[in-house]
């Protein structure tokens, strides 16, 4: 296993278009890093430069301390999991896993050790002498993973691995990949355009936009302290609402009335005439359900509800608003870039599922103003980001990861279940 270090990586095609533009990113040994962004952001190109499929125009790609820019994919000893995972129907599960080692002419004893170890991790022990046709879809995927594990690669790479699976299997596999990565502690780089995968799987997430790295942080930091409008809009579902707001001292005039900022935020927006106030759906609430003690920590406003969606455990209300033309254009552009068909002239508001707010009627809402962010409409920068609070969130995620890896190492050192190195199951095919 190895750390992956990217220094000022640039990929320019013949037409001069920079698909990846000066990206520097360090992935720690054992870390699960997600590359995410809308289509055309350069995430897959970056992954392919790591694996050696794309030539690097300039910059250094360093894996395990060695510069690999000029090395062939195989020499980098990385494993593209699920890339081609044909299972062979007449080979046993054991032989399907052992297959790459057979090709490498590894001796039987070592093959057996590795297959047993992988099947321990994947809980495939009892299936080793079966044929793939007798396995469930999920078990077959695990056999494919087993084949990647026995190679003992420096890192696992995934390129939108779940995109061609049906929804049920996708959920199962997401959990499986997460569990496996923690268990093996193997450096993993995972490309996705699906932010649920990004937020649930990664220790850290690198958000890319048009070839440029926007922010690298833990999912929580991205969610709570995004660096700019793009990251704020990309991370979170339903997405963050952006309301045009005129700055009047420490007050913002928004389509939903006035919002008072605390001193720190007021200082951050000083000198600006217009900002975009970013409010996540859950920072709103049905004002009638907010306790009095909490009410003073935010602002209330009345608005007409266009549509409500009741989902059992949650509920959303859609509130249209008017925006100045220049802001409306910018929001539409952002929406297009985020591959969203959402027209951002309405706010999506999460309200308690017991709320009796109904569509077509006026209702009173409350905004938790402590959590809003203000963005510069011109540059997109988050003016109110608390970098220190953000760094703390990412540091904590790193500590959690270290603790998980240590716990797994401890478990491996003192196994309580089936140990590795047992004899191959009866009937397993040896070739």
């Amino acid at each position, binding site marked *: 296993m190895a750390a992956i270090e990217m220094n000022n990586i640039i990929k320019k095609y013949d037409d001069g278009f920079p698909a990846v533009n000066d990206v520097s990113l360090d992935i720690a040994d054992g870390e699960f890093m997600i590359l995410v962004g809308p289509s055309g952001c350069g995430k897959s190109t970056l992954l392919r430069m790591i694996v050696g499929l794309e030539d690097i125009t300039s910059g250094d790609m360093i894996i395990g301390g060695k510069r690999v820019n000029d090395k062939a*994919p195989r020499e980098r000893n990385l494993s593209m999991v699920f890339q081609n995972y*044909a299972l062979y129907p007449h080979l046993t599960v054991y032989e399907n896993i052992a297959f790459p080692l057979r090709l490498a002419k590894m001796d039987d004893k070592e093959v057996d050790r590795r297959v047993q170890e992988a099947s321990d991790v994947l809980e495939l022990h009892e299936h080793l002498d079966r044929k793939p*046709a007798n396995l469930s879809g999920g078990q077959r995927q695990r056999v494919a993973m087993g084949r990647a594990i026995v190679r003992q690669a420096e890192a696992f790479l995934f390129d939108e691995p779940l*995109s061609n699976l049906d929804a049920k*299997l996708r959920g199962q596999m997401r959990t499986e990949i997460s569990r496996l990565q923690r268990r093996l502690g193997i450096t993993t780089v995972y490309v996705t355009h699906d932010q649920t995968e990004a937020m649930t799987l990664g220790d850290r997430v690198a958000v890319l936009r048009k070839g440029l790295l926007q922010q690298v942080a833990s999912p929580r930091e991205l969610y709570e302290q995004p660096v700019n409008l793009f990251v704020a809009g990309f991370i979170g579902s339903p997405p963050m609402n952006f309301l045009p707001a005129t700055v009047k001292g420490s007050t913002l005039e928004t389509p939903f009335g006035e919002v008072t900022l605390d001193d720190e935020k007021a200082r951050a927006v000083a000198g600006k005439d217009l900002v975009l106030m970013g409010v996540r759906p859950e920072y709103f609430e049905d004002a009638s359900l907010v306790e009095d003690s909490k009410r003073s920590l935010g602002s209330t406003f009345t608005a007409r509800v266009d549509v409500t969606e009741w989902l059992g455990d949650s509920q959303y209300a859609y509130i249209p608003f008017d925006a100045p033309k220049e802001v409306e254009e910018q929001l539409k552009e952002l929406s297009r870039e985020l591959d969203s068909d959402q027209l951002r002239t309405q706010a999506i508001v999460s309200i308690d599922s017991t709320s009796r707010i109904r569509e077509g009627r006026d209702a009173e809402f409350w905004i938790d103003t402590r959590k809003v962010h203000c963005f510069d409409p011109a540059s997109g920068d988050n003016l109110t980001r608390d970098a220190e609070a953000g760094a703390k969130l990412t540091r904590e995620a790193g500590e959690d990861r270290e603790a998980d890896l240590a716990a797994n190492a401890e478990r491996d050192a003192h196994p309580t279940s089936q140990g590795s190195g047992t004899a191959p199951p009866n009937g397993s*095919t040896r070739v």
Partner: protein
Amino acid sequence: MASATDLRFRVSSPDLLRLPWDLPLELWGPETADLRELPVGPSRHLVRFPYVDGCLWAVKELPERVAGREYSVLRQLEVKDLPAVRAVGLAVQHESGNALLVTRYLERSWQFRRLLMRLPPNRPLHRARLLDAMASLLVDLHRNGVYWGDCSLANTLFSRDGQRLQAWLVDAETSEIHPELSTGQRLDDLDIMVENVAGGLLDLAMMLDRPTEMHAQLIEEAAGVGTRYNELWDVLSEQPLLEFGDRHDVEGRIRRLNDLGFAVDELSLEPTGSGDERLRLKVTVAARRFHAVELFELTGLEVGEGQAQVLLADLHSYVATLPDSARGLQRGPGSVSRAEAVQRWLDEVLRPLMERAHEAVGRLGDPVQAYCDLLEVRWLLSEQAGCDIGNTAALEALANRSLPTDSAAMVVVAEEDTLEMARPTHEQLAALREQTAAAGDREG
């Protein structure tokens, strides 16, 4: 037809359009479509084969995004005239997020299993023909900027082409088309091919209960695909430094490319720019149809490159036997004589013997191929006998299938309809059932 299904078709086959495109593929039944079972091996996605309007079609169900991408890749492969199945339609079922990708099943093509199951055990020369065809296909794809991503025996169909085989790309789910491939992409694709070929051969060996001692040999042969690929790639891409006026080297290189079937599209000699007086020879080649084009220009026959090589050699040797006046074929003026010579070969040799050869093989496959088989069998048997055995004996050998085991003509067994084959063993039947179950068992 439910409105939640978008249809895009490139064929005007009314019965094909009438299939239940709004239904999930697993719900297609005999009442809606004449479905055929083909043992195609396990697939990531459900594939079914309706027989409609006198043709066999392959219908694959997969997520809309992947299906759309594969459809687009297959269309581009068609535009580039590369050997791949032709995409004829896409039915997007918005409700489920799935799509049905329709391709035309390639006529007179078959999977590697079909050939190897029907030959006597362990015939490396036949496997070599399959692997040559695969290496050649990958080179063709790579020259055209196509990264396959999952090249395997199971994702390839084969058809006969003279003494060679032609390989066809069947599954483009993981394929990408670039203006040009990087070395990394090529090498990665090659590694994938070698690994998958080894897997395919081992799997079949297990299915047929071949002795495990064979496995090491099969792995070696799979590794050999890489060598074949590299040799061909090097010939096509080498850029030797030549002295100015070194005509022989240039001609030699062109001849070598022509022999391999490639016509030269553009040739350039460029200074190296490093003070060296020598020039760099760069050759761009066209599609592998050098002999096919030559034969077409001479005779109007449209055949595969491998068949054209055989037919041209036959034509040339026929002309060599003619009186001088008709020997304008290779050199000299006298275009009338040349045309006459060609016409006589067509009328007196090719057409009658092609008909008899096709009859002898039971009208299997393509008549031109039957004639190529006749020529090969006659040559091989004559060599064995130490004298020319003549056409009649060669035709008899074709009809009785008493063919030299390693001859290309033996591949005719792959053309035979499955139903006419000898009964497979119980083990083979069980294995086939398992394989079909695996193919039909949708993930999840």
